[in-house]
């Protein structure tokens, strides 16, 4: 391997020192390498380890079907240890040392922002499986999780139309996803005629556990006779304390409904849900979806992980769709060359586990249906609302600065195109 790297490096520096070299990974290279960039230690391991296992399962399944382009797939797993700079380092290592053809990875936005410059420089390919705040469309990233208009906005509409909520508490963990999402929601709610004083916003640190004051504040919001609803972007472990406090305060979902964007089956397995029945979550996938494909996926997962109690969740489905789309795109393009695969990815279709078909847009976001589920006693969700597929919107329409921006990598060849001035603001991404 050393000799190969050496040869390539001399070639690269001789020819074009500036351009990246990852694009030279051609179909002939067997095995095809799939990089898995998920934290296996540190704070994010709680969520990301599952995704690493999902990827290993998907690769194994694909190999059983005969691989891709006649090649075996080989998963290269690295551990960025929840350390954001390490994500950039590991991504570079995957692309230049292991020479992977595609990467699946990241959970937090900050880790994605850390990786962006590296994959844009080296022209890598990343599939990002988690719901996120939008305001980004990188040439080298396919976003298989939900953009705000595929999760936050439909959930807010549900609150407004179906539950008649008139006063909103936006509770979030203090980091970029809740901040941006709440920002978008605030301006969306104002558009919908909700007064500024009817929107209560609160941010708490990661892993926050002392929720009594905040829950009391939320209850007190009801004093002016308006129906209160909570939109929660609280992340990870902190949810456990929050829901325990909600349950202790005797707040039923009929009085003050809570819709969460970061609470799925995995998070609920950490607590007793009897007192939380009826609270909501919005995702593009729930484990309880009643389809054959889903039943198959779940049983394959249980068999792979060797534990019947393990749950499946939305980011896992995102990887499932992303991986299969990539396989199909590679088969169509007959090469793993990044630019060819990207072109084949646009318009790529693959069936969702929840029914219907996901379509990859030219803005690198998926069109997927939005599901809203009510928490059940067994920690699963009862799907009570399902929309038609919503195309993911890279730039939100509800913030003035981004309303004028669109992303179209096919025709405009730009991820940040200003429709007002009709110019491409930049080809690279903001990070």
């Amino acid at each position: 391997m050393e000799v190969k790297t050496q040869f390539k490096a001399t070639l690269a520096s001789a020819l074009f020192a500036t351009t990246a070299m990852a694009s030279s990974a051609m179909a002939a290279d067997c095995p095809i390498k799939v990089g898995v960039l998920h934290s296996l230690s540190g704070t994010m391991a709680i969520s990301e380890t599952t995704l690493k296992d999902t990827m290993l399962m998907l690769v194994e399944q694909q190999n059983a079907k005969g691989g891709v382009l006649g090649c075996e797939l080989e998963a290269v797993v690295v551990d960025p240890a929840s350390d954001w700079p390490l994500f950039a380092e590991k991504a570079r290592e995957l692309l230049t040392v292991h020479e992977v053809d595609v990467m699946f990875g990241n959970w937090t936005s900050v880790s994605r922002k850390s990786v962006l410059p590296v994959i844009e420089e080296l022209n890598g390919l990343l599939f990002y499986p988690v719901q996120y705040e939008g305001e980004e469309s990188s040439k080298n990233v396919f976003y298989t999780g939900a953009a705000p208009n595929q999760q936050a906005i439909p959930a807010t509409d549900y609150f407004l139309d179906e539950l008649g909520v008139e006063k909103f508490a936006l509770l979030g963990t203090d980091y970029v996803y809740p901040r941006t999402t709440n920002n978008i929601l605030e301006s969306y709610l104002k558009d919908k005629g909700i007064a500024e004083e009817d929107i209560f916003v609160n941010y708490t640190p990661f892993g926050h556990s002392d929720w009594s004051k905040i829950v009391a504040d939320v209850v007190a919001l009801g004093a002016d006779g308006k129906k209160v609803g909570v939109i929660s972007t609280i992340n990870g472990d902190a949810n456990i304390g929050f829901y325990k406090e909600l349950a202790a305060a005797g707040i039923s979902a009929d009085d003050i409904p809570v819709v969460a964007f970061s609470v799925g089956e995995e998070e609920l397995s950490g607590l007793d849900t009897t007192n939380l029945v009826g609270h909501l979550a919005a995702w593009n996938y729930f484990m309880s979806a009643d389809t054959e494909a889903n039943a198959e996926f779940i049983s394959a997962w249980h068999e792979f992980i060797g534990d019947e109690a393990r749950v499946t969740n939305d980011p896992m489905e995102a990887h499932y769709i992303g991986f299969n789309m990539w396989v199909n795109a590679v088969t169509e393009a007959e090469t793993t060359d990044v630019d060819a695969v990207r072109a084949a990815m646009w318009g790529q279709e693959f069936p969702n586990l929840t029914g219907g078909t996901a379509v990859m847009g030219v803005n690198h976001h998926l069109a997927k249906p939005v599901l809203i589920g009510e928490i059940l006693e067994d920690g699963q969700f009862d799907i009570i609302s399902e929309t038609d597929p919503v195309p993911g919107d890279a730039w939100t329409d509800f913030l003035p600065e981004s309303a004028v921006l669109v992303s179209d990598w096919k025709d405009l060849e730009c991820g940040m195109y200003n429709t007002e001035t009709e110019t491409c603001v930049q080809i690279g991404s903001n990070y």
Partner: protein
Amino acid sequence: MIRRIFVAGLLLLTVALSAQAQDRTIQDVLQEHSDAIIKSSRKTIGPAIDAVANSALPEAQDVLQAWQSKDMWVREEDGLFFKAEKLDSKTYALTDFVTGEPAGEVAKDEIDQIKPNSGIRAMLGAALVQFQLNDPDPSLRRDALLAIQRDGEESHLAPLRASIANESDPEIKELKEVTERLLTISFDEDEAARVAAIEGFRGSLSLDTRAALNPIVTTEVVYAEELSANANVKRILRAGSRDLSVDEAYDLMVEAGAVTPQPSVSERKAALESNIVDGSVGGVSVEDLNTQEARDRAYAALADAGLVPAFDPDFDKASVVTGVQFAEVYSEPSAAVASAAEETLKSISRTVGLNQFFDLSLDGLSLASIYFLAAIGLAITFGVMGVINMAHGEFIMMGAYTGYVIQQIIPDYTVSIIVAIPMAFAVTFAAGVAMERLIIRWLYNRPLETLLATFGVSIALQQLAKNIFGTQARPLTSPGWLDGALQFNDVVAISYIRIAIFVLALIFLGIFLFIMKKTRLGLETRAVTQNPRMAASMGINPDKVNMLTFGLGSGIAGIAGVAIGLYAKVTSELGADYIVQSFMTVVVGGVGNIWGTLLGATMIGFLQKGIEWFNPSNTLAAQTYMIIFIIIFIQFRPKGIIALKGRAAGD
């Protein structure tokens, strides 16, 4: 009067209709609205619910209740609605709504569940009120009252009033009376009755009261020149006062069309762009338009030419709004009702303020007790022995995981907690003793290095916990009798689990004091702390004393872990969240003194809640400022609140 006649006519019509459709079954009614029911959206479901509720069929209540509890299913082959009961995961037993007879068993994939969302369920609840208010089942009567409190309607008032007289249960009767008064405030047409009902709620802390009163006193600021004659004006406002800024006033005038707004920066820019002629605008060449000043000049030239609306750079909003009247207007038309509501709310708000302060104090106390519980073990190992145990947090975590493991073995939550507490103590005691024997005793004269060694233990233990229990949070569930909260009123409440933690903290304070002051071990510990050599020469074995003290401190950490796990979460990072806070508690309080730790915890707990109160939208800021406060505090009292004096202080 006209309205009454109309209502009467409508009633007649309904009766006539239902009479006409005498042979119509409830299934027919459901079929008529089949689409809306299956679509199940709050926006379109209204007519369907009304049709069932007003069908005057005896089955209506049963249908609505089944619908509400998600027991209504639709058969795919013929679209008929049934009540279905689950037999096993694949088969369901159907019941006919009309006859109430079983209608066979079907496989699950032949029927679809109707899933009303909670908005629709609330509407169903409101529709059920008329049936349930006089239902023999008291819990259904309570449900009906709850439904009224959530979504009261004008139509509820009459049946509610009628049902009060026949109510046998005194508690429900009282509830009905209160609910009736609340409905009176919102919906009665008689002004005097409303005022009386409002005044009856003076000083009431109930959230529902405030929810009924506040909408009455909502006001809107308007441009007063076009005020209608019968508007219920609260007061006249002038622009530039505290309640109405110049900008707001100006915006109101623009909205009312009383003034034409000045073109904004972006509008002017757009105007410039659309008036580019031969590379120049208004005589200024485009390249020079890279300052605002040049752009203003070009715009002025355009305005002079009459191409764009005029823009006055010296325009002053204040001059426009001065002297103009603005008014704050109630949305409630009746002045008497509004002023009664204002009066009552004023009396309420004073009590609410007081109670909020009380509630905040309870929260502070609860947080203090959690910090105290987390720090008390550290106060022993760090304070009394001068050993810095960075692995203290991991001992807390071990305690929590012990609780989790015990709950896996013993399913009964009460018993498992009773077993878990001593087990957690035993496990962490053993771990503490082992660590003291293996590591710490070699480092007694190198306190800073204990910090490093125990830090090593800490990261090893954390990773071990991850390897054993996985990275997911594990459930540690409190027994049923600790569920819920002690509700003093609608403002002041504290969850039982927090009370339990508070009591636990008090118990440990007691135990600690008892051990230190009344037992041989305590005496020996204090002796060894003050002067190990002298103590040794008095026949005390310092090794043994140190070992036991360290074990004790660790054991208490384990119990704290169970408590913290019950109210928050059990993860491998649980301990790391508390370690710095615990150190601060001990240091702020004063090392080597349990009262100091208590004071430190109290101070930090109350301080944090106090800062949170000032800045409710940012809990992170509260933590930041608290730490900064502690840093400054230590500058002035380097040895903590209670500083040891003399020889015991060690310097």
